[in-house]
């Protein structure tokens, strides 16, 4: 008997089942097929503008900073301004994300934008969020060449670009959109749900930002350009 057999054997003895009962198997298949939504907080069930307002307010409430810009054309200037305001060098790292690539970076010649993952030497990273949940100001970021996961955690400063039409009211809507896009069995290696900058309260319960991940999280909401797959988040 393998350990696996022993574990399954003990579970089935405890439950008084064989594992072959058709009604049980059907119950599980149905649950996985239907994946019922449970209780969805009313808080996020708002019109588009109120939902965005809640999303930004919730990020600020957990020590993130936010900014709204009119179009992707304004992104390079907004980023440069943010870096100058924090006395940071005008250098950042991003992934191959086509939206980030489409911004007119040449308009800020002083700004150096490198593309790729990070090995820990970068001070500033930029990502494009797949979506977000307004209820707690939570960003949803996907691993892959477009937005390498290391960018979310190693640099001290993380700038995240979000499109308004990807901001859902609740987690379930974003997760369902993910399932629609990739299939339940095809999620990217890492789906990062990020709510504010890294923190620890392990020393006398004093909250300090920047434990192992970024000390600063700056969210830039880019209006105007419908640059996401329209309607992918059933908000």
């Amino acid at each position, binding site marked *: 008997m393998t350990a696996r057999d022993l574990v399954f054997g*003990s579970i089935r003895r405890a439950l008084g089942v064989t*594992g072959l009962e058709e009604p049980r198997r059907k119950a599980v298949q149905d649950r996985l097929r239907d994946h019922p939504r*449970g209780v969805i907080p009313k808080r996020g069930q708002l019109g588009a503008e109120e939902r965005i307002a809640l999303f930004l307010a919730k990020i600020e409430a957990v020590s993130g900073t936010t900014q709204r810009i009119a179009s992707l054309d304004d992104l390079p200037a907004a980023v440069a301004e943010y870096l100058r305001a924090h006395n940071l060098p005008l250098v950042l790292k991003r992934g191959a994300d086509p939206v980030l690539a489409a911004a007119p970076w040449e308009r800020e010649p002083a700004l150096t934008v490198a593309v790729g993952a990070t090995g*820990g030497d970068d001070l500033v990273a930029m990502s494009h969020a797949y979506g977000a949940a307004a209820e707690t100001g939570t960003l949803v970021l996907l691993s892959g060449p477009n937005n390498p996961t290391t960018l979310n955690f190693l640099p001290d400063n993380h700038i995240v670009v979000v499109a308004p039409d990807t901001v859902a009211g609740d987690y379930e809507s974003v997760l369902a959109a993910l399932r629609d896009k990739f299939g339940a069995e095809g999620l990217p*290696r*890492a789906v990062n749900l990020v709510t504010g900058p890294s923190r620890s309260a392990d020393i006398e319960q004093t909250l300090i930002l920047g434990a192992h991940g970024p000390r600063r999280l700056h969210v830039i909401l880019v209006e105007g350009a419908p640059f996401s797959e329209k309607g992918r988040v059933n908000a």
Partner: protein
Amino acid sequence: MTHHTTSPRFKDNAKAALVDPELQKALHFVETNFPQRRRNVADMLPEFDALRDAARDIKNHTLSFLDLYLETFETRATARGSQVHFAVTAEEANRIVADICRTHGAKTITKGKSMVGEETGLNAFLEANGFAPVETDLGEYIIQIRHELPSHIIMPAVHLRKAQIEADFRRVHKDLPKERNLDEPAALLAEARATLRAKFLAADVGITGANFLIAETGSAVIVTNEGNGDLTATLPKVHIVLASIEKIVPSLEDMAQLMRVLARSATGQEMSVYTTIFTGPRRPDDPDGPVEHHIVIVDNGRTAMLAGKFRDMLRCIRCGACLNHCPVYHAVGGHAYGWVYPGPMGAVLTPSLIGIDKAGHLPNASTFCGRCEEVCPVRIPLPRLMRFWREREFERRLSPTVQRTGLKLWAFFAKRPRLYRLATAPAMQVLAWFGRKQGRFRFLPLATGWTKHRDLPAPQGKTFQEQWRERGRP
């Protein structure tokens, strides 16, 4: 590093804890901060109690179909390229992890906080096999360099004060300048961050626990505030997840429901900073992430709980709310409990995992005030489960003779109401007469167990039953 179980010495541990001034100050933080923080975020979410019901129902449903959800999980995780291992015992789980580390010639191993890892004694096992695992959660790192067990399931170093941590850092980080200033908690954090960053980047293998395993997607979910779990899972070429069988949930939606009650109950945050859904190893076009992803699923006594009265305990999501609200935990802290899991959840879980003969004091160390059950996000009836242990202890004749005889004597009278009244009425009169001046007793023969620590209020002269009858409420 080995940890000795001191649960059998709970009473001595508790006595020592009560007179430890530093510990008492640290515990005061828990008592004053956490119940209020939880209250605040619960009040901000009108659906909070409905979500607790939903969380309980999801866990109950999953436990009734545990074999089938585990099967689904295994199939789908394997299809995504994860390697799924099963372990019946703690020893088996440790061996699987050590073998993977050996296969990859691991020199540096980083670890995210894992309570199952504490339970199996993984660090001690790895060290005995020539590896040097480094804990990366700040609290867990602090207790690792102090060679201690966690004193809390989500804030492992909550029993320590800043000056103690500073002394430990000065002792261990020898290559840093002696005159450096570590007065502020931020300076301590910065030092730990810099020290551990080097470990993260050098690590060959990363080991984490899991808050949830999702059957539908074959994913492991890790929740942290620091980001250490993600760095542990992302940077090394191998990521090992250690998770117990009851971590499984059916779908992404079920995880979302549980997420909503987890952080609110644990730290009083609306959401933890990082919740990551990990599915399989690095994909062909991924620029980062581990090339091997292992998931070790551990039983270690849980299937025995599934069969009996303690199944409710398997709903536990390890938030620590029951510790944060427990008057006994507030008084003695986590180490007094003598093993990995303290507080009310530990009082139920520890006897299941190490035996009631060793952990018999724990379910007795409760006032049954019921606050733990009141705040539990998955509504575990903790006082009832502690009572089950007391019953079992009594049945197995493990409780002290004096207690057993006393209870029998009381039962004899209680079952004979007339005799009971006959015996108690004069006793109350006598006690009232002796206590008439002070209104309380500072010393009473046969009741020194009580009067040693506090005064016993003197009875008013009549028994409760007499007063009840007199007021015409028969």
